[in-house]
């Protein structure tokens, strides 16, 4: 059975089923339950917040505070503790509330989790899934709106997942938790309220596989996370000009699915990558460079990367909307490579 569920509930359901299945799965983070040691809540086995946006609501009451751990404001401490838990056999799922807080806990990933197995000659496993949140769109300003999955993706030993739909979110989360490696699971805060079909049963979606969300002939658009909807929107519009667009949802940004993308580009000869990250040294430019290298002779034009500008995220609504890649920007870039196609 399956039915329409919210993106945030799909994640919650995945966490619930993973915890149900394996007692080694432990959640920890700031206020993922909330109200720890508050007597009137404890008495009724109640949580307070269930996460700043309620994504983990209901899990503490069901699994108890020993498996849903509210931590002090100590990102370096609890993130690196999660690495220690993973190295000793648990499957921790730490939450870094906003990916912007990586500034307080980066060594847990860069210095420890991503390198231990290699430095120890393959003798360690770090089965850890870091839940975090990225993206602009809610006026959270420069310190709470960044998209840093590309930084994580540059680190050897780290896998990075960015789901766009509730269905993918659940299946990818369950795969991530099954993984014996460090996985950064980055959620776009503006997608939590989106709805989609999500099977009730436990199912997984392989990490490392992109998903062709729409097939097309003339132009390939690769998208990351929320940008999928910009890509689909662009495809609708261009269809009116008889330009057939293939939209590929990357889903895993590291290691990203080179075969699927290159196969598509060999068919269409044209590529646009949409990535909300800042424009330099990001996943979009990585894709552009790999595709130019591996499919150069198939390209009918330059590869276009549509990203956020090279600025922090602004607060004011009008500026923030201008910051996020949108349909108009993509269409402008597209013009340059599809003008010959337009009837």
């Amino acid at each position, binding site marked *: 059975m399956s039915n329409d569920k919210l993106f945030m509930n799909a994640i919650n359901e995945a966490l619930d089923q993973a915890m149900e299945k394996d007692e080694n799965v432990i959640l920890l983070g*700031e*206020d993922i339950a*909330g*109200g*720890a*040691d*508050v007597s*009137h*809540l404890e008495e009724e086995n*109640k949580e*307070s*917040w269930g996460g*700043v946006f309620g994504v983990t609501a209901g899990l503490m009451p069901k699994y108890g505070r020993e498996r849903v751990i*509210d931590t*002090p*404001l*100590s*990102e*370096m*401490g609890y993130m690196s503790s999660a690495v220690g838990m993973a190295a000793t056999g648990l499957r921790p799922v730490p939450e870094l509330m906003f990916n*912007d*807080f990586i*500034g*307080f806990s980066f060594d847990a990933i860069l210095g420890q989790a991503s390198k231990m197995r290699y430095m120890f000659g393959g003798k360690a496993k770090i089965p850890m899934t870091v839940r975090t949140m990225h993206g602009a769109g*809610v*006026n*959270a*300003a*420069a*310190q*709470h709106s960044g998209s840093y999955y590309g930084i994580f993706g540059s680190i050897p030993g780290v896998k990075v997942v960015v789901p766009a739909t509730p269905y993918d979110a659940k299946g990818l989360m369950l795969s991530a938790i099954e993984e014996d490696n460090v996985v950064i699971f980055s959620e776009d805060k503006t997608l939590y309220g989106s709805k989609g079909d999500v099977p009730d049963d436990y199912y997984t979606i392989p990490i490392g596989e992109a998903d062709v969300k729409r097939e097309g002939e003339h132009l390939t658009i690769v998208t990351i996370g929320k940008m999928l909807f910009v890509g689909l929107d662009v495809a609708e519009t261009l269809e009116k000009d008889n330009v057939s667009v293939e939209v590929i949802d990357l889903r895993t940004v590291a290691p990203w699915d080179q075969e699927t993308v290159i196969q598509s580009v060999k068919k269409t000869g044209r590529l646009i990558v949409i990535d909300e990250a800042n424009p330099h040294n990001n996943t979009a430019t990585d894709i552009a460079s790999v595709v130019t290298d591996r499919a150069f002779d198939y390209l009918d034009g330059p590869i276009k990367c549509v990203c956020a*500008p*090279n*600025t*922090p995220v*602004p*607060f*004011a*609504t*009008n*500026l923030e909307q*201008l*910051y996020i890649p949108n349909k108009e920007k993509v269409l402008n870039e597209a013009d340059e490579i599809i003008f010959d196609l337009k009837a």
Partner: protein
Amino acid sequence: MAKEENKAMPESMKDVEASFKELVDLDVKTSTETRVEDLTKDASTSMYKNMENIRNFEENAKRYFAAGEIPGFVHLYAGEEAIAAGVCAHLSDDDFITSTHRGHGHCVAKGGDLNGMMAEIFGRSDGLGKGKGGSMHIADIDKGILGANGMVGGGFGLATGAAMRNKYKKNGKVVVCFFGDGAANEGVFHECLNMAAIWDLPIIFVNENNFYAEATPQWYASASNTIAERAAAYSMPGVRVNGKDIVAVHDIAGKAIERARNGEGPTLIECVTYRMYGHFEGDEQSYKAQSGEEKEWAEVDPLDVFREYTIENGLMTEEELDEIREQSKKDIEAAVSYAKESPEPSPESLYKDVFAD
């Protein structure tokens, strides 16, 4: 909690020792004496004016956030006015402060322009940050405000560095670092208090212990009963004071700032307080106690406490106090109009101010 419920200090809290004891065992120095002779009428007037400005600023922020005119995250300082107003009363424009995500109060008390602040949280071009920073990033360096900070603990380093600069310049200026009970569990608290102590920096670490970090109680998250006692680990004086009592805060802060200006080094001051509203607007606050001493703390309105005090001690009359309150309401309403009339930022401004050239 509706505003009219607010009380002045309950008897139990008049004796700080006692009330703190109930809250948590207290084993650090506590200020009880409130040195009236220090408080001139002028000082009282400007402190009360700051408290009113903060309160009215927050009430309006609350109203216009609810009305959807102020976007983003808004963390209100209402209920904690005595701390910012009491501490900043000792500072001049070229003393620095670092603030937090709950920063409106600090910025008002340090002299931040009310119009520019309000326009900023509305996201308008005449805001102190041209509408690009918002509530969590209000700053006014010329007024000595190194910025509200969306990163919990983000202020420790900025403040410590500013204090290193003051020490190097031998300018007798001080820095005040405001931070919460939750922030005290960030590693950078440890690093900066240690550095401030080994270098005898002119800095005062002012902790605002409002019982909670979001929905997490201080008594759960901190292994130490008090924040103040942590000062001992840095051979630094640690003091705990009733943060609802501006006279007590002003007294202790004055001594600490004096020490700092004289090159006698840093002080950690823990001010126990309670926020009037949620962690941020929209917080249902199911974690808050509905009875007992916590509730008592919640119901204390520091403005009422100070009004009572100034009247009892003949510093101000009720009429004078009401006049200040009315004027403040007018000033804040003017700030709201200023904000509403200010245009949204120009599209080009998105690309500006990344680099200085």
